[in-house]
């Protein structure tokens, strides 16, 4: 059995305002190293909510969450920020690049925050990631001057900069056309195959999900199939 990267144990979550609505009901599953997992389900089934809990950004839940066999539940905000910085890479539906910075600087920011490598090394690593994704020629462009597909690839490079244990994606292809979606999927596949990267992607794109290793299907806050 390969090592566990992420483990969710009996996770429950309710929205209390204005009335109590249970959105997640007893979610338990494990993601192992090198797995390419997709979470699917209809809109409103709680898959995004689950992702934000797994990403440590949402701390308002019951149950337990382990990342890299360390319990995340009950940690302080600043400690969780460090975990996100070091162990988790994010790709969202929207790219969330900072327009004030160049493409390269956007990719470098989480690396600079981690402060594990010198600025020059971080820059070198960032260029390597961009090269791997085939967009190193954009490095010095301002982030708002590149196309949507390119932006999403920059966001992936940013997610990769600190060699995270797991990359989490919330509809990473949701805003992209077929061609760019395929590019993004190919990148993810390449990451799992060549770098043994763990991926957890929330998507409602069934064709995308079908090509992943494992599908976790959700409905009404429960896992119905995995």
């Amino acid at each position, binding site marked *: 059995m390969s090592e566990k990267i992420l483990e969710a144990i009996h996770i429950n979550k309710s929205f209390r305002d204005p009335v109590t609505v249970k959105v997640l009901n007893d979610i338990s599953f494990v993601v192992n190293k090198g797995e390419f997992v997709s979470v699917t389900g209809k809109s409103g089934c709680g898959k995004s909510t689950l992702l934000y809990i797994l990403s440590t950004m949402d701390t308002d839940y019951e149950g337990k969450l382990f990342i890299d066999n360390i319990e995340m539940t009950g940690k302080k905000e600043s400690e969780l920020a460090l*975990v996100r910085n070091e162990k988790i890479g994010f790709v969202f539906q929207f790219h969330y690049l*900072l*327009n*004030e*910075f160049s493409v390269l600087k956007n990719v470098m920011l989480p690396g600079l925050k981690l402060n594990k490598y010198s600025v020059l090394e971080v820059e070198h690593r960032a260029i390597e990631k961009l090269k791997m994704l085939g967009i190193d020629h954009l490095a010095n462009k301002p982030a708002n001057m590149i196309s949507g597909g390119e932006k999403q690839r920059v966001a992936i490079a*940013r997610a990769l900069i600190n060699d995270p244990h797991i990359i989490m994606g919330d509809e990473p292809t949701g805003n992209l056309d077929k061609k760019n979606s395929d590019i993004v999927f190919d990148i993810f596949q390449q990451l799992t195959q060549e770098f043994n990267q763990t991926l957890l992607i929330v998507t409602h794109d069934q064709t995308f999900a079908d090509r992943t290793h494992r599908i976790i299907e959700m409905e009404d806050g429960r896992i119905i199939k995995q």
Partner: protein
Amino acid sequence: MSQNLIISIAQSLLVARWKQTLVAAIGVTFSITMFITLLSFMAGLNDLLDGLILNRTPHIRLYNEVKPNSHQPIQSAPTYQNAYHFIHSVKSANVRQSIYNSEAIMHALKNDKQVLGYSPKITAQVFFNDGNIDITGIVNGIDVNAESKLFHFNDYIVKGNGVDINKVPNSIILGIELGKKLLVDIGDIVQLTTAKGERFPLKVVGFFQSGIKDFDKVQSYTSVSTVQKIIGKPGDYITDIQVKLINIKDAPIVAKQYMQLFRADAEDIQTANAQFETGSSVRTLISYAVGITLLIVAGFGIYNILNMMIYEKMDSIAILKATGFSGRDVKRIFLVIALGIGLFGGLLGLVCGLGLSATIGTIPFNTASLPTVKTYPINYNPVFYLIGIVFSLITTYLAGWFPARKASKIDPVIIIRGK
């Protein structure tokens, strides 16, 4: 967490919104400029007004006051040693106006480390004779060099030369108003009569203008020896010794010591001119109040602009948090932005303040009562600049603190899910 990263992010956000930044910084610049200008100008005026009196007033004046003897004979009677004495119709004792042992006192003052300098003086009442009219006046015998050095005597000479009263025998410097009354000019002779009825002709060598008209109507100056000659007293006859101390604050204490040591009356400047301190401090207080008000207004400007910036930058804040920046880091980024505006605006304000006050300092300001002042007075005290920059940093820090805290509390999930 590297400080450089925080600063570089803050810098990029600032540069990206440079117009807003500029508006915020101009607010700070304006208030610091006005703060510096106001204080420099106000302090300059204070110095000027205080100088009117304080420059010319000795820190300690040694003299003999006409007053009743403090030791009355009844106090020596052993019978009434422990009784309370009621004495009626006490009269002032016949004291000598001149200071006893003046040579020795001056020698002691010369060796006293607290003393910057001293100047002897004789004051005598005289009449100036103008035709058949007698004008009451006062003639002061002074050591013109010491007087100029310690009490800026030369600054108030508007015509002629102060040193001439030492060089020209039997010469006199008249108050400008007195000169007008007597219709004399430099080189003319005035006649004066002493209280004892003796007449002396003296040559006018200059005029002075103190800025206080009543003073200029009666006062005149000549050398110590000339006055001694006029009133027929010997060379050691001195009625006042004016002492200037190194530290004016010591005056009340030193005055008490001298009173015992020299057995003469000693009056310190604080007792003689208490009202000036009050006036200056009230004026200073008002200028500080206005300056700080300006800064607080600028602070609200910064608060608004940072608040707006945070609403605009919600996405950026969310992604910074998602990629591992803690709330504290985000807060520091916005505090650095606020302080950057404060520092930049403040430094620019100091330069503009210096420029504006220097400009005011060149505006002509002529008034008959202040002969030495040609332009508006400005005090370039570095303390104002220090206070200015410190205040600008404190205000901007406080103005930035609330928006920064708000930014640090932003929940990235709400922003990201909202898309």
